[in-house]
């Protein structure tokens, strides 16, 4: 096998292809083969063992899990390098010709959660329009296209929006009081069709918004940036999502993106070291590089990552 093989998250996929393409163009090595298939599957493949038949790099939109590390270890994949390439912003957007929205996590919680606090008690959610949720919002029927539970984005949405909203509205308190120790009810969504899980991609969400003009969808920042002529983005806590606001941490809903390198393949698979060096170089992952142009929020600590990659430091155990 001559070419590098990469698999994993479909969120990281576009960035990886951009780098792979440039890499193939400017180096003597063949262009790496980059697969999607999901973070979980990518990490599973990475951990299948050491050898030509296994992939070299797994892209991941979330941090590797202990179970993956255990699987790796049991298959002889002992050293993995964790490379954080930047951040992915998650934005809320609606049809361009629709109303403007300025959300807070609490609005989302009150709109989508199965149980909300009304006058201090937990009741079933009966809000019909956004105006019911928050008087400042337009009186438009609630209809939200959120990522299905297979998506890593959903986890971010759950944590950074729903749970935050749950806390903010006091629902978490109420649940704990009612005996739900970990406030797991925060993540229970209405099942009456106002919140629609999307198992497909952002393109599907976009198409659905096209078909349902009054809906709000959840997108990645880069996707939104490519479709600004169709979508109107909503603010969160008053902040407009952009690479800058996310990099600075002002915009709350974002997550880091990673790739994991099988260290055993370094020095064996031609071009692997060069590829990862190239990926994290300023030319690529820097704030002015093509990745940022495409919508990756550049990692402020990129220099550290570059150093780590150059020295081949494997990742420390998860804490």
């Amino acid at each position: 096998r001559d070419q590098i093989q990469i698999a994993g998250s479909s969120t990281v996929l576009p960035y990886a292809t951009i780098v792979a393409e440039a890499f193939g163009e400017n180096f003597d090595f063949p262009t790496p083969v980059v697969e999607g298939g999901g973070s979980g599957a990518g990490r599973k493949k990475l951990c299948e063992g050491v050898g030509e038949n296994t992939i070299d790099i797994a892209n991941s939109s979330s941090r590797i899990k202990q179970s993956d590390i255990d699987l790796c270890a049991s298959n002889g994949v002992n050293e993995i390098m964790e490379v954080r390439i930047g951040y992915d912003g998650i934005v809320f957007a609606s049809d361009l010709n629709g109303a403007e929205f300025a959300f807070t996590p609490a609005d989302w919680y009150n709109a989508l959660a199965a149980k909300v606090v009304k006058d201090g008690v937990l009741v079933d959610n009966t809000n019909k329009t956004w105006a019911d949720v928050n008087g400042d919002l337009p009186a438009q029927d609630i209809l939200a296209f959120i990522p299905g539970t297979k998506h890593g984005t959903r986890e971010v949405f759950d944590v950074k929006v729903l749970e935050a909203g749950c806390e903010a509205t006091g629902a978490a308190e109420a649940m704990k009081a009612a005996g739900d120790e970990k406030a797991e009810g925060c993540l229970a969504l209405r099942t009456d069709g106002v919140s629609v899980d999307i198992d497909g991609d952002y393109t599907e969400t976009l198409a659905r918004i096209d078909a349902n003009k009054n809906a709000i969808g959840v997108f990645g920042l880069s996707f939104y940036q490519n479709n600004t002529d169709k979508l109107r983005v909503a603010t969160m806590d008053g902040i407009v999502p952009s690479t800058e606001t996310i990099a600075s941490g002002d915009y709350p809903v974002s997550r880091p993106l990673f790739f994991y390198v099988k260290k055993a393949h370094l020095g064996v698979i031609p071009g692997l070291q060069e590829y990862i060096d190239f990926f994290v170089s300023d030319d690529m992952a820097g704030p002015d590089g093509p990745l940022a142009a495409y919508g990756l929020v550049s990692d402020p600590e990129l220099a550290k990552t570059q150093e780590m990659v150059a020295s081949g430091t494997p990742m420390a155990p998860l804490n």
Partner: protein
Amino acid sequence: MSIGLLLAIILGLAAVGYVIGIRRAKDRAGGDTRRLHSLAGYHGQSVLLFTAVPALLVVGAWLLLQPVVIEARVSGMIAESDVPQGSSLDLVMSDVRRVADGLNAIAANEQLTEDEIAAMGADLGGLRSRLGNAGVALASDVQPSVFEASRTYRQMNNTGLTALSISAILVALAGLVFSASRIQAEFRARNVSESFVKLLFIGSSFVAVLTTFGIIASLVVESVHFFQLYPIKDFLFSLTWNPQFRGGSDLGIWPLLWGTLYVSFVALLFAVPVGLLSAIYLSEYASKRVRSVVKPAIEILAGIPTIVYGLFALITVGPFLRDYFAQPLGLGTSSSSVLTAGLVMGIMLIPFVSSLSDDIINAVPQAMRDGSFGLGATHSETVRQVILPAALPGIVGAILLAASRAIGETMIVVMGAGAAAKLSLNPLEAMTTITVKIVSQLTGDTEFASPETLVAFALGMMLFIFTLGLNVIALYVVRKYREQYE
């Protein structure tokens, strides 16, 4: 000698054997082929088979075994110290193979002798760039032991190939001589070659069985794994499907199974009548010209990628049904629904029903139609009461095929019916199917070893068992109604 050349030689020998077989058979018959038990062609065929098949088997077996043997020998040559930290012998071996390939390429390009190749070991640093120029990229400099191993690997491979070539050709020749010498006028060459072909047939039908075993084997391990993490009781009896990232998911199969059945049912409800009526019209009423255009046209429907159907469902059919049916009837406001997915999937399935049924209907002998017309039946009565019953087994086959396709379809359901697992009777509500969830759980971002991902295997397994049951029932039903003409 390259494998391609070797195969060509073997096939060439087989062709020669074919000719020899025919010649010899004719000779043996004293020029009067009528004295042969079997046609001369069968004699040729039997020689051909005896020449080619054993030799090909030898090649196949050899090619499977040679790498194992050689690598076992060569890997012994690599110094422990040359295996980098954290790497494995396996990876170093891949380096060995790559270097050996490169050496071959260089040797071929520059007409090097063995000694000159051995001499290259002196300049291992330069070797890397030379190899690079020969199109073999290496990640690092070649270690001495790796170089030696590569040379040995290369030599052994070359020797192995030579040995293989010689033995395969010998086997082929032996087969040729043996089978040619057996040729007698009375030799039952036809029986021999037919038994052989029959063996091939049996082998082919085993492919299907092996596939099933393969599927079960590849599903069962992870399914067991899943049931260790998630109680089988909940999986089989829980009525909710609600996977979560952080565990505590409800993974009951019922909403998915229900969705699968419902969507497939709607799809068949659409596809079977439309397909069957099209088939009847094409084979019984349409002119030859119309038929020869329309039939392939309808078959295009089977070739349109399902994603196109998915988008069609999502953008056109879904909103249409919502605006003109669901909302006016107060049956919901969802643009994705069972009905949407079912209808669109039904379109895709039309050719499965129509094309095959059409062929089968066409195969019903004309005498059946004549018999019915002669009694004063109208064409439609003839079709309904004589032709369809006669064609029933084939039609059921077609419908089963369509049903199978419906159960296995993903994209249309994702876009048409949505991803919400629900137990509802309302066809205008969003639902989802087992297949969709298999795909989405398997390709999701959840960690692999979690029940949320592993459930895909269990779902696959359950679906397999479920459809097996349906098929057994179908088999008995068809058996019962099968009608044989003539």
